[in-house]
């Protein structure tokens, strides 16, 4: 069989092919997919909204070094359909973070969204999407963009053209840094956050909601005011 000495070559070729195939198979694993926005999504999303969050391993903060318990950690963000949401993420603790979005599905109930240990537990509302890391996800800001420099600001944007519930989380701290973005057609103007003002005008009010308590925060002034049940009826 090996008199002519082809066995070694055959094995080496087999080895190179198998190593190459497995290498390319693993390296091309889908790490982020499905939600990647197209240019038509951006042109459809005519409204503009703006959110400033602080990346901390303990959870997304809406204020720098959030020690006040009345300020929500992992705030729920309400966005009107067809809105391009600009994220301004500030590194707070020096650890690597990502800002990743996932589409969880459409809502069919007015139930709230309790999050326990990284899982959105209300299965009735979310259908089969029980996890914070759904099959459809998009990383808005990677660890390289957010960096580990404390105080570094990074900007990203995402056009929300489809109504429903989105999750936003950090792939490195998925159990603590996990919140929900609710995209809908709000009837009550007091909870509309989509504005057509340009992004250069930073004076865009933005609303955040904490479970159990409802708050509207103006991130530019830092003033948080408690409101009544603006989530109900949506």
């Amino acid at each position, binding site marked *: 069989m090996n008199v002519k000495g082809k066995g070694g070559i055959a094995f080496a070729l087999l080895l190179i092919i198998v190593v190459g195939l497995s290498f390319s198979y693993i390296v091309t694993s889908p790490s982020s997919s499905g939600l990647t926005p197209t240019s038509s999504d951006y042109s459809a999303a005519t409204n503009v909204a703006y959110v400033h969050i602080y990346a901390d391993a303990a959870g997304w903060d809406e204020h720098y070094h959030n020690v006040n318990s009345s300020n929500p950690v992992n705030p729920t963000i309400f966005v009107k359909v067809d809105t391009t949401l600009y994220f301004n993420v500030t590194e707070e603790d020096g650890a690597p973070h990502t800002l990743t979005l996932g589409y969880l599905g459409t809502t069919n109930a007015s139930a709230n969204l309790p999050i326990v240990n990284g899982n959105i537990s209300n299965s009735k509302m979310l259908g089969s999407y029980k996890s914070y890391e759904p*099959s459809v*996800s998009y990383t808005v800001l990677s660890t390289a963009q957010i960096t580990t420099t404390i105080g570094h600001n990074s900007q990203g944007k995402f056009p929300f053209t489809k109504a429903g519930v989105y999750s936003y989380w950090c792939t490195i701290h998925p159990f603590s840094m996990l919140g929900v973005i609710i995209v809908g057609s709000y009837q009550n103007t007091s909870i509309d956050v989509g504005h057509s003002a340009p992004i250069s005008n930073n004076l865009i009010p933005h609303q955040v909601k904490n479970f159990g308590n409802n708050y509207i925060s103006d991130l530019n002034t830092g003033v948080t005011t408690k409101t009544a049940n603006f989530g109900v009826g949506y």
Partner: protein
Amino acid sequence: MNQTDILIVVGVLGSLIGIIGFLIYYLIATGREEVSTEAEEHGYEIPQVYEREEMYGRRVSASFSVLLRNDSKSIGLRYIFTSILFLFIAGAFGVLMRVSLTDPNPTIIVPVIYNILITEHATLMIYMFAVGMALGLGYYLLPSYLKLKRDNMGTYSSFAYWIWLLGGALFVLSRSSMRWYMYPPLSLQLTPFGAGTYNWLAIIAMEMIFIGMMLASIVILKIIFIDRSDKISLSKMPVFAWSVAFTLLMLVTSAPPLMVGLGMLFYDFFNPVFFTASAHTVLQFAILFWFWGHPIVYIAIMPFFGIMYEIISRFSGKPVYSYSSAVFSLGLLMILSELVWGHHLLNSGLGTDWVLFFTTASFIVVIPSALTIFNMIATLWTAEKIRLTVPMLFVINAIFDFIIGGAMGVMLGDDAVNLTAHGTYFVTGHFHFVFVGLTLGVSMAAFYLLFPTFSNGRVYNERLAKWHMYITALGSFIMSFSWGVGGFLGMPRAVAGYFPFFQPYQDSAIVGGVIIGIGQLVFLYNITRSWMTDPVTDPSNIFEISANEPLEGPGLVGGGK
């Protein structure tokens, strides 16, 4: 038809074709008819007698036809060459991980893929390379070392090999990122991206690997204890046979807890009752895992201790300095390895009593390890002349690396040090010193020694082989040592990024890792090139004595009696 339907149809058809193909292969491989005809031609009436006297224990060189033969030596060749294949696959993943850490922030590959790479690297290296190499050398060498009376478990061995290989392939396909220890909250994720990348497939693949390993272990244990020649008493068995016997006894006694645990984990996908946070039972899986997880790392080194004894005897011209203490220390290592698994969980709240027990037991492991190493050094010490051939250089480097890695392991076994060093690159440095220096190095030494037999009398290029050895030793030392230093300063392991403070340690580890990779390419080139030359030497060597030769002589391979 939508995409899912097409996939189902393709999957079912593919499975059917695979089953039919395997059936045909099985009919060819068992080949009973063929053997009877051949026996008749050689004047034997009973095929079994012909098999025993003419076929078993003969030299088998490497060729693709070993896939069609079911004798132990062919099975051994299958395991050895498949292990080398998986060494290169997992090694490529390892080098990519190193290269991706040139920047403190993950820029070259995203963290999700880094996690997949780390899982594949660890699992394939341990189950497909180290265990495969140990089983392969056992299958290949033991029939001639022990002059088998019969070799009638070929079908089981073949099945074990194929299910083991299929498990390894499915593990690659699973793209799982749950780490090699499969802790439940992470491994129970079922989403296609990120942490839960087809974990169900990975768990099935692990079970298949386990079934293959268990079957092969039982067959080899039968070879050692039941099928060996009546002339070879237990006290005259080579140290290598003892090391394989102890290793596989350890494997068959400690694998079942994790096999059961994996079954329970799989059930948890459908009905989470066993390892749930609400029932406070997540740690139970960790305990089931490490009850197996500690013995597996000894399984990856103990057969290679046996090979080291054989190689040292061969090239120093002396029998093993103390045969009885060599066997005793290997046996003690087997027993103690079942008692120290808790030192992987020192920081998980087992309680002070248990921590003290496991710390103490971990220190006691030093006794058999040191006995083994001093026995080897004593054999070298009493020799008049040591031939520094390539396998011998690998073995000397293995002794050197094992002492460093072992000392780091003893440090880690101490609870106080473990508090600061666990989860850092110090751990990675510890086991890479042992695995790259000892497991990889001694595998390569055995491969070089057996190369003339594998290739029908061809010789490898000794200059290139020495380059391979020196490059691997240098790269391994640079990489593991940088990890050791950086890890003791707190560099966390198994993450896709690091703090810029650790840049120098990571950079030097990257250099070391790439050097190791280049060394293995030299090996591949050397083997391929040497296989194309003409046969110039006798394919038999001390590692591949024929079953028909008498056991007399200087007693190099046998024990010290």
